[in-house]
């Protein structure tokens, strides 16, 4: 009689609920496992705090820029705002038009020719017309420009970018640019001939003053060369660009006199002594020379994921506990009781996976939810600027890290069930998840290999912690050692989940086929 009842119990949804309860009871009554999980949460927070308190006001500004006086853009993010500006004030609505006929430049000591200053234009060298709130660095602006390698663009407020027609500028193929202001709305136009105009983009700048500065500008960012070898990865070379403008016209309430300024001050580099920035005018033709950039600063040292570095210590502890959750049953012989109580072996493992996955997810969530705000507070107290992220991104980073920990724990459980050897399973999972990340971020392998490691191995999941995506309108050192992953956040997590599902499938198959 009683056998009939028990076999009824172990079938169906009700049976699975009992299994879950049994596995949960096992987990919470083993003191070592509960302690291990608590330790995992604790080290996640503590290592994050350690990393945060060892990070003082990061003084790694680009060459020529002084530390501590970094401009901040309208959205609160640190920005670069340096360029040569030929300007006059404009009050109320109006428009500016100019034709760019040439863009040339120099690059100092590039990798291909390290002893010389060679002619060359950076892909993101910018020359065009701009409407800017004031000459203060970091103030709102909108600009239409030609670039070295990315055609005509309209950009505003440092992070926004829209593409116009492609192709380089030359005397035979000049570009006409126009920027009009109507209230808060700025519209950028381009034309090949000055009579047929097309819209490049529109910007709404509600904070813009009534009287703005408008005129011609030239900026040329540092030349970033990512080294394919080992080591820290990127070198920055100073550059300068010169653009020729004519057919300049201004409509609206303007002062009528042009003046030239190096916004953000001179670059200080020796280059400026022999190749000074500035403007020369002959008739209606302006030749403007400048360096710098109008762009966000994407310094990964200030990102939110730095607060989550303690997750590595937590991850290792969780992998150990998750493995023991199944291998200990083999060692003690409890597995035979478990399988006698519930002959559906696949379901037993599924119940274990649900329990360990939930426990690690909740522990991870609590730990990261504490670690992130605490570390941010410590970082701010140390004077380190953090790049702000949106609430949704912050939630994604915190919940994603918890999901990463849960998926890794289930992977460890499945590997433990397959191998039945705890040390082998723990080593295999740590090597699969942590070692590729270690090799990639410490530049122990070349950048190309590092990116493949972070695409193919379970370590791809750490992409979920990346707070900022690379800006398409910048040439930065977007390498793994700088915190940029080759896969999108959720795609990276999906790679780990794929491995976990595969390992779980193999484990269930092996559990069914073999004797306990």
């Amino acid at each position, binding site marked *: 009689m009683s056998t009939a009842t028990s076999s009824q119990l172990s079938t169906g949804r009700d049976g699975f609920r009992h299994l879950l309860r049994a596995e949960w009871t096992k987990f919470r009554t083993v003191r070592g496992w509960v302690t291990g999980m608590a330790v995992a949460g604790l080290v996640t927070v503590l290592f994050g705090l350690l990393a945060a308190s060892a990070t003082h006001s990061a003084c790694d500004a680009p060459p020529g820029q002084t530390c501590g006086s970094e401009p901040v853009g309208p959205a609160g993010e640190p920005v670069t705002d340096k360029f040569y500006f030929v300007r006059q004030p404009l009050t109320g609505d109006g428009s500016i038009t100019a034709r760019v006929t040439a863009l040339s430049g120099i690059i100092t000591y590039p990798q291909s020719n390290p002893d010389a200053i060679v002619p060359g234009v950076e892909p993101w060298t910018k020359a065009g017309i701009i409407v800017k709130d004031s000459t203060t660095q970091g103030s709102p602006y909108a600009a239409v420009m030609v670039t070295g390698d990315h055609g005509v663009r309209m950009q505003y407020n440092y992070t926004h970018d829209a593409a116009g027609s492609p192709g380089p500028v030359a005397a035979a193929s000049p570009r006409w640019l126009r920027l009009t202001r109507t209230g808060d709305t700025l519209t950028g136009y381009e034309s090949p001939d000055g009579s047929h105009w097309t819209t490049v983009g529109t910007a709404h700048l509600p904070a813009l003053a009534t009287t703005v500065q408008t005129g011609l500008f030239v900026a040329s960012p540092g030349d970033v060369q990512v080294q394919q*070898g080992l080591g820290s990865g990127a070198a920055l070379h100073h550059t300068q660009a010169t653009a020729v403008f004519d057919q300049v016209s201004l409509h609206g309430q303007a002062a009528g006199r042009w003046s030239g300024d190096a916004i953000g001050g001179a670059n200080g580099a020796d280059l400026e002594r022999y190749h000074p920035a500035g403007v020369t005018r002959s008739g209606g033709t302006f030749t403007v020379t400048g360096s710098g950039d109008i762009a966000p600063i994407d310094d990964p040292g200030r990102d939110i994921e730095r607060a989550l570095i303690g997750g590595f210590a937590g991850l290792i502890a969780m992998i*150990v506990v998750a493995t023991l959750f199944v291998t200990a049953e083999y060692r003690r012989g409890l597995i035979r009781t478990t399988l006698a109580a519930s002959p559906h072996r696949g379901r037993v493992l599924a119940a274990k996976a649900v329990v360990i996955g939930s426990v690690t997810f909740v522990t991870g969530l609590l730990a990261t939810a504490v670690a992130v705000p605490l570390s941010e507070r410590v970082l701010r107290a140390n004077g380190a600027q953090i790049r702000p992220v949106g609430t949704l991104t912050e939630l994604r980073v915190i919940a994603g890290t918890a999901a990463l920990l849960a998926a890794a724990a289930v992977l460890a459980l499945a590997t433990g069930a397959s191998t039945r050897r705890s040390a082998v399973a*723990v*080593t295999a999972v*740590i090597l699969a998840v942590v070692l590729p990340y*270690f090799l990639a971020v410490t530049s122990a392998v070349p950048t190309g290999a590092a990116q493949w490691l972070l695409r193919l191995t379970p370590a791809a999941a750490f992409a979920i912690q990346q707070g900022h995506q690379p800006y398409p309108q910048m040439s930065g050192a977007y390498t793994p050692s700088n915190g940029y992953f080759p896969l999108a956040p959720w795609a990276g997590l999906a790679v780990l989940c794929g491995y976990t599902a595969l390992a779980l499938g193999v484990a269930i198959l092996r559990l069914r086929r073999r004797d306990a």
Partner: protein
Amino acid sequence: MRTPPEAHRTGLRTALHAEWTKLRSTADPLWLLLATIASTTALGLTAAAGVSCRSAGCAADPARISLAGISLGQAVVAVLAVFAIAGEYSTGMIRVSFAAVPRRGTLLTAKALVITAVVLAAGTIAVLGSVLAGRLILPGKGFTPGHGYPPLSLADGPVLRATAGSVLYLALIALLSLGVATAVRDSAAAIGAVLGLLYLFPILAAVVTDPDWSRRLQRIGPMSAGLAIQATTGLHDLPIAPWAGLGVLTAWTAAALLAGALLLRLRDA
């Protein structure tokens, strides 16, 4: 009537003999040693095949690249050492071992000596294989005398130091793992602790933006300090000098073995 004959049998030589028999009569250690050789040379090969040096002074260290596989091989060595003691605890074999060799210090010493010997042997093969692979591959990747890189040769002082030092490094990692496993007794927890100790310091050092703290972390971490022994270029710029770095790892190993020995003496089996 038997004379009490077991007294002389509990000496170090008998214990050594017993440990050697245990090691060679089980399949795991042999497989793990082969895996050490295979994983070390394979990762070294991959790293060497992936680099390129386009101009003089490309700031890469050919010895370090060839020996990059040590960062993987050390994990396998750690498993081998952890098994040697924690494996006995999980099967209950440890009680038999203590009955045969009641002096616990002697048992641990015997285990340490046997493991050191086999790891030195396998490590020598793995490291020489990696250096040979680097010597054959790297010149084709731009590491030419014209760029300031003569082919890797053991006749070169720093290269010899890097090679021999890497073998020693593996042996020290094995002993560190033995010490931790003796203290922890559970193989999963022991291997987790060892791998955490090894990989966490360099990851933290890579993340911390303060250069002083970053170098400090690299100086105290057993892996980052110990692997300074592999440096053959840019020696003045290292966070820690090569032999001093191996000294830091030795200190970690000594501390782990000491803790293990103490706990072994104090606790029941």
